[in-house]
């Protein structure tokens, strides 16, 4: 099991390669969409790179639940419903949804996920695999 620092360093490499950003931009607080400019194809790229560098398997939609965010069943007036939020919490236990839950506009979702969230996500994956 790699240390937290080692996990962060590998994630930093994956994000620099996938997003073409500078290493010093990839801080734990940086949001993937807002600060680092990730788009949906980038999330796929990031998932591919994390799978390769950590030798883990990441089901599509686990890191970024695009299927929930585009499912009319879970959205009302551009916001996630309670049921939608519950689905996202279930899918992404590693993300802190406290702030987002106050006004869960779908278009703001991308600004939620930070590099630190991603580190927690990979840590959980590695622990489950160990």
């Amino acid at each position, binding site marked *: 099991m790699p240390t937290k620092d080692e996990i962060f360093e590998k994630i930093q490499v994956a994000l620099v390669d996938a997003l073409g950003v500078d290493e010093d931009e990839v801080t734990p607080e940086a949001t993937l969409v807002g600060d680092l400019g990730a788009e949906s194809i980038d999330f796929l790229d990031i998932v591919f*790179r994390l799978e390769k560098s950590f030798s883990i398997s990441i089901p599509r939609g686990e890191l970024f639940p695009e299927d929930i965010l585009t499912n009319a069943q879970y959205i009302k007036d551009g916001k996630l419903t309670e049921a939608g939020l519950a689905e996202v919490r279930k899918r992404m236990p590693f993300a802190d949804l406290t702030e987002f839950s106050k006004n869960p506009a779908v278009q703001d979702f991308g600004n939620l996920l930070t590099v630190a969230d991603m580190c927690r996500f990979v840590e959980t994956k590695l622990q489950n695999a160990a």
Partner: protein
Amino acid sequence: MTRLADKKILITGGSRGIGRACVAKMAAEGGTVAFVYQSNQQAADELAAQLTAAGHDVRALQADVRDSARVHELVNQLVDQWGRLDVLVNSAGIVRDGLLGAMTPEQWADVIETNLGGTYNFCHAVVQQMMYQRAGSIVNLSSTAAEFASRGQANYAASKGAIDGLTRALAKELAPRKIRVNAVAPGMIETDMSAAVRGLAADQITKAIPLKRIGQPEEIANVVAFLASEEASYLTGQVIRVDGGISLGGY
């Protein structure tokens, strides 16, 4: 010409017809080629042996393109061996013609699953490696039947029309990763697949083609090789008709 020198190339439906011509052409252009065949092992082995004897790097691999797990396994093994994958040509295709009112669910499903499902399976399997290497070219085999009606080919036309849509959508998705996706839409080409239709209406078809002849598989392979090469570096999301002008219409 060796415009595909050092390129690692995977071609489906490679033992016969247009796919076979693509294998020969792309090997002759300097590419390292693996081609997929479904059932005709003898034809596949002969083609691989013949091209290997001529000094090319060609191998034959068996797979049913409808089998997603097998397709992923095959692609992963190739990527492990080659360390990269530059070109995918989706040429595997079948016809099961019949008027729609008399078409069985099996006739429908066979064609959709092989032509469209096979194309999806291989695109899905190569995308990870191509995204990783930030380079790649995918060429799908469409058909003029996607746009121009012919009786008895509702299943085939539907599969090829869907391939055109897939080509454009995937081109847009993958363009930021410098992967190009295009399709070639052949008209009437002299292959086993078109033999039945040509047998029924050869004179009529030839008359309707402005260039006044049926095309040869090599004439499609030339365009596929071009699309796969760096010469087509600014070309993506296009369906190129190679049909002797039959789609021009008019008088």
